[in-house]
């Protein structure tokens, strides 16, 4: 087979194979578009994606199509190397055409992006009686801490009510590194930067659990810095919100375990058996809250100061959880 035939043939075969491989997965859009949007902002981003895909797809077909066509049509055949092709040096009108046409396409793309932008950055106007929820999202090595207006603290899993505007203030403590908060189904990612506050929002229509992960490389446990968003019916959320506030106030509840799972277990293991961090089970520190607090607040060796700014309440919850689970039971 001459190479000129082999090339389009191979491309066709591989194209067909790729499509065949992709077909069964297409049910879940298989990564050909961003994940199914659950919030108006993510929907508008998806619409922009599809808009760009239409134009880039067309350009793709024009360029690859004419490449294949020329390769086939103008192959050497029986011609010798000394035979000249057409000695054409250029054409001003053509140059103008393929300068202006891309400009027009880019104007169309840019205009659509700016048209969609308000839907992406501005939350829809809330009804008068609806109260927006504002959550502070803080990125720590290597967990997410969420602070609610009533003082409730949650880690890694954020809980939010369905069909209500949730506004986010995204930041990181001064001594930490840059992270990026990202749940693909509710929209784009925004960096959690020490010393800066970024804002974002979402409004999810259906209850469920949405998954995401830290988007900016933040060190050894970057891959483990997962985030979840649990969207609950309003009543369920209100109940959780109130009872959790009371429980955390009274020092009851799961805050200790949640803190351990998010901030400690990724390096020391859920059972305290150790991983890249030393084992905690049987470690004298777990029975000594003051010494433990010292390490947690200031870090030691490779361990970052994971809890430098935790409240007394959160610190107590962690130290008593550790003592009960891994120490002498207090």
């Amino acid at each position, binding site marked *: 087979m001459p190479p000129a035939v082999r090339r389009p043939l191979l491309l066709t075969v591989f194209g067909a194979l790729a499509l065949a491989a992709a077909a069964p997965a297409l049910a879940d859009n298989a990564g050909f578009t961003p994940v199914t949007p659950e919030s108006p902002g993510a929907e508008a981003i998806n619409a922009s994606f599809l808009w760009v895909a239409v134009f*880039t797809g067309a350009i793709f077909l024009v360029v690859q199509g004419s490449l294949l066509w020329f390769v086939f049509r103008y192959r050497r055949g029986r011609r010798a190397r000394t035979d000249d092709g*057409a000695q054409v*040096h250029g054409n001003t009108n*053509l*140059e103008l055409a393929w300068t202006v046409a891309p400009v027009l396409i880019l104007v169309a793309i840019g205009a659509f*992006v700016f048209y969609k932008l308000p839907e992406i950055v501005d939350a829809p106007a809330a009804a008068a009686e609806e109260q927006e929820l504002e959550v502070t999202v803080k990125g720590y090595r290597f967990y997410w801490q969420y602070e609610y207006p009533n003082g409730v603290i949650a880690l890694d899993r954020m809980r939010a009510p369905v069909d209500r505007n949730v506004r986010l203030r995204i930041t990181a403590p001064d001594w930490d590194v840059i992270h990026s908060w990202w749940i693909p189904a509710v929209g*784009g*990612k925004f960096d959690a930067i020490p010393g800066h506050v970024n804002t974002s929002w979402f409004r999810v229509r259906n209850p469920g659990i949405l998954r995401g992960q830290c*988007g900016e490389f933040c060190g050894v446990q970057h891959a483990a810095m997962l985030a979840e968003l649990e969207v609950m019916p309003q009543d369920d959320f209100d109940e959780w919100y109130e009872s959790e506030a009371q429980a955390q106030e009274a020092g009851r509840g799961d805050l200790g375990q949640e803190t351990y799972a998010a901030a400690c277990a990724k390096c020391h293991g859920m059972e305290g058996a150790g991983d890249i961090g030393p084992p905690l089970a049987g470690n004298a520190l777990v029975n000594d809250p003051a010494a433990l607090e010292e390490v947690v607040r200031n870090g030691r060796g490779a361990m970052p100061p994971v809890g430098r700014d935790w409240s007394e309440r959160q610190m107590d919850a962690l130290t008593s959880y550790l003592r009960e689970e891994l120490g002498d039971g207090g």
Partner: protein
Amino acid sequence: MAADPSAHPVRPEIPQWQRGRFASWLVTVDHKRIGILYIATAGFFFVCAGLMALLMRTQLAQADMEIVTREGYNQLFTIHGTMMIFLVVVPILAGFGNYLVPLMIGARDMAFPRLNALSYWLYLFGGLSLLFSFFADDGAARAGWYSYPPLSVYLAGAGQDLWILSLHILTISSLAGAINFVVTIHNMRTRGMSWTRMPLFVWSIEVYAGLLILVLPTLSAGLTLLLFDRQFGTNFFIPAGDADGSPVLYQHIFWFFGHPEVYIMILPVMGIISEILPVFARKPIFGYKAIAFSTVAIGFYSMLVWAHHMFTVGLPNFLNGFFMISSMIIAVPTGVKIFNWLATLWRGNLHFDTPMLYALGFLSTFTIGGLSGIFLAAFPIDWQVHDTYFVVAHLHYVLFGGSILGILGGLTYWWPKMFGRLLDERLGKASFWITFVGFNLTFFPQHMLGLLGMARRIYTYRDDPLWEAYNLASSIGSYVMGVGILLFVLNIVKSRRGPRAGNDPWLADTLEWYVSSPPPPHNFDKVPYVTSSRPLYDLRRRLRERGEL
């Protein structure tokens, strides 16, 4: 007593110890030998960084593999990226430039031959300090190739400092090399070679060198401040009470260098493509001036787009909008090039020798990389796909599908000139096709992974059948690519006994093909007078008219 130099032409006295096969390479100031040293060294680093990539793809073949440790994985992607950019693509293009620019413009050597040698040796030792940083306490740098603070300030161990040291050395090397290129191109062109008759590869090296001179000092400054933050307790990039630094400042500094760097890595490759296509289409390049001016335009706009790497840091949206528009503007001169290359094929007499296959492969894959770039330029879409595998796919389509394919094509094109031997065509074509298929299999599925939500720089990922399927395809593709590169190396080794090339095996148009292969140390006994951008085409025509060919 002063002798009359014209009476006794001075032959440089070469001491005996410098004449050996090995020693002569150590002391050489010949631009051709320095060019070959650059290319060989970059080839060595390419294999090193490629093996690192294969190790990473093995780790990622399935979820929760334990081929390398977490810290090990972070070191691998940091050094893979740094090495491919600073030790492979930029210097191998300096190698091509060194070898070809004086020959193409009809000069005896580079303007400053000794400075040229200094550039090479700085590059070699800067590169080795990066490679050997794996043996430092706590291993090599592990904060990514752009090493954002505060992370890069807080990471313990000498690896990060060696990374800074190595980049400082490489910066000086590139800067000296770039100045050398500019002086050579401006002052040493042969009679008749005006700016619009200069080979397009030389145009691209001119812009490459200009960009390096403009942006490398910014990188040096940023690296120095980073070193201060690490070692001397300053707070340029970390917020700390009164002395309030900003991590975002580093990102501005880094990407003001980092984005032009992308074009530094692609423009000379576009120059290579502009040399190969017309020779194998038996045509003049279509739209010489449009291609030359679009090179300059891309170089200029490349300095106005840096913050499109920073759409997620929370810049005001009017700035995001500005950088979206400026990034999209760059697509226009890039499109002009692609359309002119396509038009060069139109009504040609296309010969599919190995260099041509690489050039056509470049056209196909680079276009995909350019188109995925439009998604990334639209900042709300970037909020979604930033720092995901979509970006990894995009940058490899541009840097492998673009730069590396073009570089491999350039190597197969000029290999006969450099070493006087032809490469094996069958082996060359097999190598191209295997690399091309492997490349697409590796990187196309990564677009999908990114859209599914897979972040980059993670040593493992969600245990999901679709994620694992795409990742496995990608890993298999990387091995296929490895086989293709292996065949390329085999071909090079075999060419030592290949047929002799003669001066001009491709019937090409530019001056380097006028001299013998390999060229004599002084390049030209006599340079043909240049009356167009295709002096050898003109020469062949004159000879034919006189019946001498």
